[in-house]
């Protein structure tokens, strides 16, 4: 096959590749440090991420849409991407109907805390996760026997079926959706509209005039008061869940289960021969991915607006979720998180391009896939394989190929 790519295109790829190398460097440097410093660094980074919507750093902060709300959305997408990464990245199953699990989690909370019963949110949350997990097993058991490529369309079908069901079943609110979903319990008293914001104490936020920060006391966030006009407390809560899932993800990936997934993904028949019950592990991945999706949906349902409707669970979002995982780098949890954040953040950040932003987003997705097929942050193993392949290619005299 021809490998005569125009050499002028090569440099545009380099910065992206450097991103991976840079990330490797960061991880290596981090790993070489003594434990105490590691802990301090983690603490600092985590604190920074928590404080982001109050620091409102210039450039990053969205100007035409509430930054706290965008951060909440980013965290929700990051959590979804993390869950879908287990299904796609670890187990290698293409799930185009992931939105169905998101919807299941959201509707479980909606039904339990508002529409039929009035449970508090934190009681409904574990049940929502459990219900979604069971849904995952019920859907996975028949569909995972279908061959790889068909799994995509079958899961896509299930995603649509779930949406059409919630749209048409009165018991689930039908097309009007469910409103007044319980917010998480406020600490220090909830908001008493119209003037009392509730909460233990107010935290002011920063306002930037160019690069000069000043403290803005006019728009404070009431600490842990879950009301309808401030998304920041919801962001904090979701971020906490995200961090917990991240830790769990790390533990599982490093365990026997993680290795079984990897073996199944790389060669199912070989894995089966070596005594890995591949179907069981695929089902486990599906169920775990579902549970995390359901959890994200549960947080979304009880978010600032406390309102869900079938329109929030369109097929299109499933595509976006898959795009998030792949763009970020399937198989690498940090890549998945980065992908989830970017897919939500970019269209919101560049709202001033209003009409063009979906066009640009689509083109960016294509360009990224074509010029950076491993994703922004591919797993280290994949990068090593790729480097080795490139060396071989160069030795064979096909040096012009540039990825």
């Amino acid at each position, binding site marked *: 096959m021809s490998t005569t790519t125009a050499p002028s295109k090569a440099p545009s790829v380099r910065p992206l590749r450097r991103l991976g190398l840079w990330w490797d460097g960061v991880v290596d440097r981090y790993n070489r440090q003594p434990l105490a410093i590691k802990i301090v660094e983690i603490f600092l980074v985590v604190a920074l991420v928590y404080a982001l919507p109050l620091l409102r750093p210039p450039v990053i902060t969205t*100007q*035409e*849409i*509430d930054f*706290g*709300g*965008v951060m*909440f*959305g980013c965290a929700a997408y990051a959590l979804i991407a993390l869950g879908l990464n287990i299904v796609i990245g670890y187990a290698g199953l293409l799930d185009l109907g992931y939105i169905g699990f998101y919807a299941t989690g959201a509707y479980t909370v909606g039904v339990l805390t508002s529409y039929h019963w009035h449970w508090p949110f934190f009681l409904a949350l574990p049940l929502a996760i459990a219900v979604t997990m069971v849904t995952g097993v019920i859907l996975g058991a028949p569909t995972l026997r279908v061959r790889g490529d068909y799994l995509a369309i079958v899961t896509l079908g299930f995603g649509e079926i779930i949406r*059409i069901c919630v*749209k*048409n079943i009165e018991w689930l609110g*039908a*097309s*009007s*959706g469910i*409103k007044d979903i319980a917010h998480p319990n406020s600490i220090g008293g909830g*908001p008493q*509209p*119209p003037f009392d914001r509730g909460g233990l104490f107010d935290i002011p936020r920063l*306002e*930037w*005039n160019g690069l000069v920060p000043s403290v*803005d006391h*006019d*728009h404070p966030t009431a600490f842990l008061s879950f*009301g*309808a*006009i*401030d*998304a920041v407390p919801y962001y904090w809560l979701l971020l906490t869940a995200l961090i917990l899932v991240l830790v769990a993800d790390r533990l599982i990936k490093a365990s026997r289960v993680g290795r079984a997934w990897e073996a199944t993904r790389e060669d199912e028949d070989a894995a089966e021969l070596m005594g890995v019950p591949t179907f069981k592990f695929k089902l486990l991945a599906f169920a775990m991915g579902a549970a995390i999706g359901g959890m994200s949906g549960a947080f979304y349902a009880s*978010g*600032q*607006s*406390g*309102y869900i*409707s079938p*329109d*929030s669970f369109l097929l299109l979002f499933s595509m976006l979720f898959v795009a998030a995982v792949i763009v970020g780098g399937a198989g690498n949890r940090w890549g998945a998180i980065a992908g989830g954040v970017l897919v939500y953040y970019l269209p*919101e950040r560049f*709202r*001033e391009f*209003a*009409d063009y932003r*979906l066009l640009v987003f689509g083109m960016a997705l294509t360009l990224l896939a074509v010029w950076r097929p491993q994703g922004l942050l591919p797993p280290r193993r994949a990068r090593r394989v790729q480097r080795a392949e490139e060396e071989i290619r160069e030795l064979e005299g096909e040096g012009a190929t540039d990825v």
Partner: protein
Amino acid sequence: MIRSSRARRAAITLAATALVLSACGSDGDDKSNDAAGGDGGGASELCGKNLAFLGALTGDAGALGQNMVGGIELALKEYNADNADCKINLKTFDSQGNPDKAPALATQIVNDDTIFGLIGPGFSGESLATGKTFFEKGLPSISPSATNVTITQQGWTTWHRVIGNDNAQGQADAAYLTGEVGAKKVFVVDDGQDYSKGLADTVKEALGDALVADDQISVGDTNMSAIVQAVKASGADAFFYGGYYTEAGLLAKQLRQGGFKGTFMSGDGSEDPNFVKVAGTQAAEGAVLSAPAGPPPADFGASGLYATQAYDAANIFLAAVQDGASSAQEINEFIGSYSNDGVSGPIAFDENGDIKESKIYAYFVKDGKLDVENPQAIS
């Protein structure tokens, strides 16, 4: 028509203003605007501030939001021409009609100190998703187009609409079908959305025994042959559709092609010239489209569904500015006691924020086009 280029120029200016304003940061620009206005004493404190529009400007329903912005911009242009010393501008927030995107935009709106009133939200779904946010902040809002009955039953005292809700329209439509048309068997279909289902359900209830059967389609459906078959099998002599003009047009077209001879009726979501284009002139002929709004004056400078309502909504806020209202509370009280004739009909609000007197008109497709000038009052 000059409309297209003017609207675009306005949009560009608007985008530029929005950029400049947002670049300044919200605290800074109050002062700079007040200073730049140089209006001296006497004028309202709202001079130089903004109205906000929240609704779909891009995405599948973007055309409807563009109609509304056209109406609002017309009102602002007229007002600003007469009040050069107290200009009011518009900031638009594009929700794509998605209840998922609307809350973060609502938060942005309530935290923007330069915004004193909201025109919108455009659709029922996003209204339900954001109502709480606007209410907790106390930002007065007037929707030109969200007609779902339940929105005004939430106790959100700052929420108003200048369009009759689905109840009033549905009852008038049903009465028209059974009375004027004399239909004995009516087949009712909707597209399952908040607005559509609300309207269709009211019609079904009001029809009582005259309802012969019902069904539901999905937005984006193009193959209506199953519905056509069901309508024919039911022997219906009239057909009512709750939904928007694209599907309404396809239904009318395929029903006529399938040999349905009865009356075709639909609500305000279908009252748009595009209905005739989609259905084709022959199939659309004789269709009845109801709307809770009278015809716009002949020289009205904006076009499309909901443009008149948006124009009226903007004028209520502008009247509040001229009246000297300054706080959110004063504006809200002003809106509550407002009573005047708008281009879409007489406007006054009841205690829930619903329009008091909503006259329902039936528009007819005659001689191959939607006759917007000679509707018949049916309530």
